C-alpha cells in the first residue's frame, strides 16, 4: 500500500491540517476495532514505539502523522502542540519562525524560501524515508497571505525538484472579495502561477462557500424540522478540530472540518476496500485531460444529515442531486451551467453500482459535457462509510465554472496593480493660482492620491525583496490570463452540435 504525506503551510494550512488529523484518527478509530496497525492506517500514519523507532506490524503503539508543519509564525503550531493532538506530531517535523511573512508572497517565497530551503528538504526527506512507497504529497495552504501563499508555493517547487515521481495534490484556499488583507490579490495571482506550473492537481476552496454551507447547517440544526437533526457523531459538524478553541466571529473550525472531510473522502478508496477502488494516481489520470487544466471543483454530500439510518433509494438519489447543486460546491461556482471536461464520483458506504448508474442516467441530460468526452464519468465504490453516515458522495469536477473565480482574481489584481500607472504630476498643479474651489479639488485629489500611494507602497513592499521584480507580476498575471483563455476556448464549444470525427478508412 502506498503512503501520503501532508505538508501544511501557514496559519490556514495548519489549522485545516490539524482538523484533518483529528478526523482521520477518529475515522480509523471507528473502523479499526482491534487496534492493529493495518495497511489503511499506514497510509497516513507511522507506528512508533516508546523510543520513536518505527514498527511495521502488530499492535498500535503510538501513531505519528506523516506530516510536515511549517509556519513563519509560532502561534498556530504552538497551539497544536499544546492541544489534544500534541503526541501525533513528531517534533522533528516542524519548521517555525517568529517574524511572520507580513502577508507578503515575496517574503514567503523569496526570503523564507531561500533561508529555509535546506531545512525543508531535510524534513521532507526524513518523512519520505519513513515510507516504503510514497505516492502523494498533499499541500494545504491559503493563497491570500504570505506564508501559505509564498512559502507554500516555494515548497511546491521543492517537491517537484526533489521528488518528481510523487504526485502533488494542492488544497488552496482562495481569498474572498471582502478579505481584509489588501494585498491578497497580489499574493494569490503570484501563487497561482506556481500552481499552474508545478501542481498535478489543485482543489480550490473559497471561504465564502464554506461559510454559506456552515450557515445552512446551523439553520438546519436550529430549524427544528422533524427528521432533520444532525447526527451526533457526524464528522462534518464536529467542533473540536484539535486546536484550543478561540472565540471567533467566523466559524473557522466548522469550515475547516469541511475541507478536512474532503481530504478524508478523497483518500478513502485508497485506504479502505471496496468493489471498485480508486487510487490517488487515478484521479489525475482521469480528471486532467491537458496538463494545465488541473483545477478540480469539489462538492461533498451529505452535509445536513438526516437522522434515520435506512435511507431508501429516493433519498440516496437526493444525495447525487445535491452534489451537482451550486450550494454544495466548495467554490462559488455553478457547474451545471458550465462545461464539464470530466467528472468523478467517489461513493462511500452501502451504495452499489446500479445506484450510481441510475443517477448518472438521471443527471447527465441536465449537464453539459465537452464534445470529446460525452460520457466522461469516473466512479469509485468504497465500502467503508464516513463516521456517522451510512453513505456519502464526493464529486470532483473538471469544469469551466472555475473561470469566474479566476477572472475575479485577475480583476482584483489589476485594479490594485494598474493604480501605479496613474501618476499625477503634482508639481504642475501647484504652480497655478489656487482658488478655494481649486483648493478643495486639490485636497480631494490628495485624499485619492493617498490611497494610490498606499497601494503603491504595497507594491514597493514586494519590489524591495531581493530578486523580486516587476516582471514577476506581469508574468504571473499573464499565466493566469492564458489559463482563463483556455477555459474560454472550451466554453465557446458548449452547446454546439457535436460532429463525429471522420474515422480511419481501411481497405481490406
Amino acid at each position: 500500500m502506498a503512503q501520503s504525506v501532508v505538508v501544511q503551510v501557514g496559519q490556514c494550512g495548519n489549522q485545516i491540517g490539524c482538523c484533518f488529523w483529528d478526523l482521520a484518527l477518529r475515522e480509523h478509530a471507528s473502523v479499526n476495532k482491534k487496534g492493529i496497525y493495518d495497511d489503511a492506517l499506514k497510509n497516513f500514519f507511522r507506528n512508533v514505539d516508546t523510543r520513536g523507532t518505527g514498527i511495521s506490524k502488530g499492535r498500535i503503539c503510538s501513531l505519528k502523522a506523516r506530516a510536515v508543519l511549517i509556519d513563519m509564525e509560532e502561534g498556530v503550531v504552538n497551539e497544536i502542540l499544546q492541544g489534544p493532538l500534541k503526541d501525533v506530531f513528531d517534533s522533528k517535523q516542524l519548521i517555525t519562525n517568529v517574524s511572520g511573512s507580513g502577508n507578503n508572497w515575496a517574503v514567503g517565497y523569496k526570503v523564507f524560501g531561500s533561508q529555509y530551503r535546506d531545512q525543508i528538504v531535510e524534513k521532507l526527506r526524513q518523512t519520505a524515508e519513513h515510507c516504503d512507497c510514497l505516492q502523494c504529497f498533499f499541500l494545504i495552504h491559503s493563497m491570500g497571505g504570505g506564508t501559505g501563499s509564498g512559502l507554500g508555493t516555494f515548497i511546491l517547487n521543492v517537491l517537484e525538484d526533489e521528488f518528481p515521481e510523487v504526485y502533488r495534490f494542492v488544497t488552496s484556499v482562495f481569498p474572498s472579495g471582502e478579505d481584509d488583507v489588501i494585498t491578497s490579490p497580489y499574493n494569490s495571482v503570484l501563487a497561482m502561477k506556481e500552481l499552474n506550473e508545478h501542481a498535478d492537481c489543485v482543489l480550490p476552496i473559497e471561504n465564502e462557500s464554506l461559510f454559506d454551507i456552515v450557515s445552512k447547517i446551523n439553520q438546519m440544526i436550529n430549524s427544528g424540522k422533524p427528521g432533520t437533526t444532525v447526527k451526533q457523531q457526524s464528522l462534518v459538524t464536529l467542533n473540536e478540530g484539535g486546536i484550543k478553541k478561540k472565540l471567533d466571529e467566523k466559524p473557522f473550525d466548522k469550515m475547516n472540518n469541511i475541507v478536512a472531510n474532503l481530504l478524508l473522502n478523497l483518500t478513502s478508496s485508497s485506504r479502505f476496500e471496496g468493489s471498485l477502488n480508486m487510487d490517488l494516481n487515478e484521479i489525475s489520470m482521469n480528471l486532467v485531460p491537458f496538463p494545465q487544466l488541473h483545477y478540480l471543483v469539489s462538492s461533498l454530500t451529505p452535509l445536513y444529515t438526516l437522522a434515520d439510518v435506512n435511507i431508501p433509494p429516493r433519498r440516496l438519489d437526493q444525495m447525487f442531486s445535491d452534489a451537482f447543486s451550486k450550494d454544495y460546491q466548495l467554490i462559488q461556482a455553478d457547474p451545471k451551467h458550465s462545461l464539464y471536461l470530466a467528472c468523478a464520483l467517489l461513493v462511500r458506504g452501502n451504495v452499489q453500482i446500479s445506484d450510481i448508474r441510475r443517477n448518472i442516467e438521471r443527471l447527465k441530460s441536465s449537464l453539459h459535457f465537452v464534445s470529446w468526452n460525452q460520457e466522461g464519468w469516473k466512479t469509485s465504490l468504497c465500502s467503508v462509510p464516513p463516521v456517522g453516515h451510512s453513505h456519502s458522495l464526493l464529486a470532483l469536477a473538471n469544469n469551466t465554472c472555475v473561470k469566474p473565480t479566476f477572472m475575479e482574481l485577475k480583476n482584483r489584481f489589476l485594479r490594485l496593480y494598474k493604480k501605479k500607472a496613474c501618476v499625477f504630476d503634482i508639481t504642475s498643479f501647484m504652480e497655478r493660482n489656487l482658488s478655494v474651489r481649486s483648493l478643495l479639488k486639490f485636497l480631494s485629489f490628495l485624499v485619492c492620491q493617498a490611497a494610490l500611494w498606499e497601494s503603491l507602497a504595497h507594491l514597493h513592499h514586494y519590489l524591495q525583496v531581493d530578486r523580486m521584480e516587476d516582471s514577476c507580476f506581469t508574468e504571473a498575471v499573464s499565466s493566469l490570463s492564458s489559463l482563463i483563455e483556455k477555459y474560454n476556448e472550451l466554453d465557446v464549444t458548449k452547446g454546439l452540435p457535436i460532429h463525429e470525427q471522420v474515422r480511419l478508412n481501411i481497405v481490406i
Partner: protein
Amino acid sequence: MSVVTVQLGQCGNQIGYEVFDTMCRDLHNTQGFCSKRENEIYQASCKEHFFNEDKSEVPVARALLIDMEPKVISQTLLKAAHSGRWKYGQHSHFCQRQGSGNNWAYGYSVHGPKHEESIMNLIQREVEEYDSLSGFSIIMSMAGGTGSGLGAFLTQNLRDAYPNSFIMNQVIWPYGTGEVIVQNYNSVLTLSHLYRSSDALLVHENDVVHKICAKLMNIKQISFRDVNQVIAHQLGSVFQPTYSSEDSFQYRRNPLGGFKDPALYTSWLQPSDAFCEWRTHRAFNKYEKSAALVSNSQFLLKPLDTIVGKAWNMFASKAYVHQYTKFGIEEEDFLDSFTVLEQIVASYCNL
C-alpha cells in the same frame, strides 16, 4: 489436463474468486441429476482441470493472483480461505504497492517489464506442477490499468514462452457510461495487442450482464458482486467437463480443447457445421438443464465499433494523450491500435 487461470487486477481477481467458488460449489453438488458414477467421474474431471489437491485435502485453485496494489488480493485470499471449501495456493500471488492508475501505458510499459521476470517465474513454477498443461485462461478488464496494460504485456509474454499452449483471455467489457474516463483508450490499446497474441477472446459485457441481473434475475440493488457472480456462472458452465467427440462417455481431456475447433472461427461454413455442441449429462450448479452459448458472431461488432468511435473522438482532441506519452506510448502507437481495430470491424462487417 489443467488450466492455469491468471487473475489480473481488481476485476480479474474479484471475478476469478467467484469462478472458483462457483465451480467448487458445483463440484460438491450431490444433485447432479445423473447417476452416482456419472457424478464421480464429472467431479474428478473438474477437479483435475481446475484444482490441486494438497495435504489438507482442501482443493487448491490452479490460479495465480496478480495485482499492482495489495488490497484486492488480500481480500480475495481471505474470502477463499474463510469459505473452508477451497483456497488459493500459499505462494500463488504477486502484488506491488502502487496500482497502475487506470493507465494502460503504465501497466504495459512500466509494470510489465519491471515485473516480467518475477511474474513469469511464478507462472513457470505453477506450470511445472502439472502433468500436462491445457492452456491459460486470463481474466482481465479492459477499462483499467493493470488488467488491461499488464494483461496485454503478459499475454504477449505467454505466447512467446509457451507457443503451443492455448491462450484464452476472459475480457471484461466496461459499462458504456463510465467506470473510467479513459476506458476507451485502454480498451482500444488492449484489444489491438491481444489480437496479436491471444488465441481466443471470450467477452463479457458489463452492460449486458447488468441487464441480466435486472430483468432476468430481478435484483433490485445490483452490486458488482452480483455482476461477477453471473459472469462466473457463465464461465463455469462453459468450462465444465464435457464429453469429447470420440467417446460420448468419456469426458474431454482438455477443457479448452473445444475452443481449438476451427469451426468456431471460420466465416465460410455450412450452417450445419457451424453449431458445435458440447454435451454433458451432469447438471451444473443445481440447474436441471442449462445451456451456455459461446458464439463468434457479429454480436460484438456494435460495441466494438462504439468503443473505437468514442476513443477516436477523444484522440482527435488529444485529450489525455499526455498521460500515455509520459510512459512511452506515443501517438503512433495509438494510430497503430486504431488501424488494427478498424480492420477487425471492417472484417466483421464484410461477413
